[in-house]
C-alpha cells in the first residue's frame, strides 16, 4: 500500500527534474522542439479533462488552441502587449468559447458531439480566413521572436501549472462530479450533480487550458495562420490523448511525446522520406489501437502493478446515447 502511495509523487518529481534539466543538454533548435512537446502536453491534458474525465468527446480542441493563438497574435502584433500578458486574456476567451461549444453537449452526446466538435475544428480556420483585417487572413500574422530557452521554460512552466491545477481539480469534489457524469449521467443527476453546470464548466476549463496551449504554440511557431490550426492539429491532440490513455494524467506526457517526436524522429532518422511520414504515423496509430487500446497509461499501470484494481480508463460512450 505504501509503495503505491509513494510511487506517484516520486515519478512526478523525477519527471519534473528531468524536464527542468533537459534544456541544458539541448541545442536551441531542440529546445523549441521540447517547447512544442510542452504545448501538446497542455493541449492533451485539456482534452483529457473533458473527454477522459467527463466523458464528452471533442475532436475540436485545435479550435480552442486557435482562439488562444489568435488572442496572443492580435494582442502582441496590433496592441503591443507582452507575450506572457496575453495568456490570461487567452484563458478568458478560451473559457467563453468552451462554454459555448459545450452547450450542444447538453442536448446530445456520443457520436453527435464528436461530429459537432469535428465541424468546429474545420470551421474555425475558415472563419479566421474570412476576416483578414482582424486575423491577417491566409497570410497570417508574425509574432515576437523568443529564444529556444525562453520558449522551453514558458511552455513547461505553463505545463507544470496546468498539471497541478488539473490534479487538484480532478482529485476533489469537482473531479468526482466529472467522473460521475462520465460513468452514468442518470446516476450523477440523481445524486445531485448538475449535468448542465458540470458539462459546460468542464468544456470551459478544458478550452481555457487548450487556449493557453495555443498561445504558447504560436509563440513557438513564431507565426500564426489558419493553416497552423488545420484539422490535423485537432486530430493529433485526440490521437495523443488516446495513445497516452484517457482518464489518466500520467499518460499525457507519453501522448505529447508521441505526436510531436514520432513524426520528427521519422523525418530526421533519414530512413524515410518526409512524404512517407504521415503514412507511417497513421499505421502506428492503428497498430497502437489494435495492440494497446487503453493507451500507455494502462501499459504503465500493468507494468508497475498498481494493485489489482480495475482499469480506470473509461469507455467513452460513443454512439450510445449517454447512460
Amino acid at each position, binding site marked *: 500500500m505504501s509503495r503505491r502511495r509513494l510511487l506517484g509523487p516520486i515519478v512526478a518529481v523525477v519527471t519534473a527534474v528531468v524536464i527542468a534539466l533537459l534544456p541544458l543538454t539541448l541545442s536551441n533548435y531542440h529546445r523549441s522542439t521540447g517547447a512544442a512537446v510542452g504545448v501538446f502536453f497542455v493541449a492533451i491534458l485539456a482534452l483529457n479533462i473533458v473527454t477522459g474525465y467527463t466523458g464528452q468527446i471533442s475532436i475540436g480542441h485545435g479550435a480552442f488552441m486557435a482562439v488562444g493563438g489568435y488572442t496572443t497574435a492580435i494582442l502582441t502584433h496590433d496592441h503591443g502587449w507582452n507575450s506572457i500578458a496575453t495568456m490570461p486574456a487567452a484563458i478568458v476567451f478560451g473559457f467563453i468559447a468552451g462554454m459555448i461549444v459545450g452547450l450542444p453537449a447538453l442536448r446530445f452526446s456520443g457520436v453527435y458531439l464528436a461530429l459537432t466538435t469535428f465541424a468546429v475544428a474545420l470551421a474555425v480556420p475558415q472563419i479566421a480566413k474570412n476576416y483578414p483585417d482582424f486575423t491577417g487572413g491566409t497570410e497570417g500574422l508574425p509574432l515576437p521572436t523568443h529564444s529556444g530557452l525562453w520558449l522551453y521554460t514558458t511552455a513547461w512552466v505553463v505545463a507544470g501549472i496546468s498539471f497541478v491545477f488539473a490534479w487538484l481539480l480532478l482529485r476533489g469534489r469537482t473531479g468526482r462530479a466529472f467522473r460521475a457524469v462520465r460513468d452514468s449521467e442518470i446516476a450523477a443527476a440523481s445524486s445531485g450533480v448538475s449535468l448542465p453546470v458540470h458539462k459546460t464548466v468542464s468544456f470551459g476549463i478544458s478550452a481555457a487550458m487548450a487556449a493557453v496551449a495555443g498561445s504558447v504554440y504560436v509563440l513557438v511557431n513564431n507565426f500564426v495562420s489558419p493553416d497552423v490550426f488545420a484539422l490535423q492539429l485537432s486530430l493529433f491532440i485526440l490521437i495523443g490523448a488516446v495513445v497516452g490513455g484517457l482518464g489518466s494524467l500520467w499518460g499525457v506526457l507519453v501522448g505529447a511525446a508521441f505526436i510531436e517526436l514520432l513524426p520528427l524522429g521519422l523525418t530526421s532518422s533519414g530512413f524515410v522520406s518526409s512524404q512517407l511520414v504521415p503514412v507511417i504515423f497513421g499505421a502506428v496509430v492503428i497498430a497502437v489501437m489494435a495492440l494497446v487500446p487503453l493507451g500507455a497509461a494502462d501499459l504503465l499501470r500493468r507494468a508497475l502493478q498498481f494493485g489489482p484494481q480495475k482499469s480506470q480508463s473509461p469507455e467513452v460512450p460513443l*454512439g450510445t446515447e449517454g447512460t
Partner: protein
Amino acid sequence: MTARRSTAWIVPTLLLAGCAALLIGSLRSSLFAQQTISGLANGGIYASLAVALVLIYRATEVINFAQGAIATFTTYVAWQLIDWGLAYWPAFICTLAFAFAFGFALELVAIRPVERRGSQLTVVIASIGLLILVEGAVGYIWGNDIRFMPAPFPAHIYRIGGVAFSRQDIATIAISIASVGVLWLLFRFTKLGLAMRAAAVRPEAARLVGIRVSWMLSLGWGLAAVLGAVAGMMAAASPSVLLQPSMMDGILIYAFAAAVLGGLESALGAVIGALAIGVTLNLLGSYVSWITPQLLLPAAFVLMLVVLLVKPSGLFGRTTARRV
C-alpha cells in the same frame, strides 16, 4: 414516444414547403433555377458520401472519418487509369471495382483487429489514423500538386424556357442518385442485402442463423468505398473542386452534416439532407452577399446545429427510448 407522434407532421410539411418555395423561385427567376440545379448537383455528391457514412454507421455505430480520404485515393486511381490512356467510362468502372476491393481490404487490415478488442472510441481513433495514412499515401504516390480530371461529359448546355442547365450538373445528380438507388435495391431485394441488414441490426442472432457477420462488415466497407469513389469522381469533375489530396475534407463535412440531418441511420434521410444542404448552401452563397465561400462550411455547421437542437435525432432518426 407520444412526443414523436405529435410532431411527426412537421418534417414532411417542412420538406413540402421547401420544395414549393424552390419551385416558385425557379419559375420566377432563371438564375434561381440554375443555382438550384447546381446546388442539387453538389447535393448529389454529398449524398453519395453521406450514404456511405450511414452504411458503416448502421453496421457498427462508428463514424468513419477516413471515408473522404478513401474517396480521394480512388479518385486518384481513376485519374491514373485515364492518364495511362484508358477512356473515361472503362476507367470509371475499373475504379469502382478497385474501390470495393480497397474498402474491403482496409476493413480487414486496419479496422477488424482494432474492433476485436477496443471500444467504439478506439475504432474511431483507428479511422482517424486511417484518414492520416490514406491521405498521406495519396501525397506520397501522386504528390501534392493539383491535377486535372478530364470531364466525363462534353460541355453542353440544355436550355429549357430560358433556363440553362449544364449537362455536367444533370449527370452528377443522375449518377449519384442512381448509385444510391442501386445500393437500395441490393439491400432491399437480394439475399446478400438481407444478410447485411441482419448482421447490422442483430449481430448475435445473425451469427446464429449462419451469417458471417464479420464478412458482412467488410462487405459494407467495400460498398461504402464504392459510393465514396462515385462521390470523388463526380466532385473531381466539377469545376469548383480540384484534384488534390485534401479535396474531400470539406465535402466530408457536408456529408457528415447531411447524415446527421437525416438521423445517421436512414439512407433516405441522408440523401434528402444532402440535397437540402447542397441547395441551401448554393443559394446562400449566391444571394447572401456576406456569406463568402469561406463561410459556407461554418454555415453548414450552423445549419446542422440548429436542426440538432430542435430535433436531436435528426429529421428521419428514430427516437429511442432509453432504459435506465
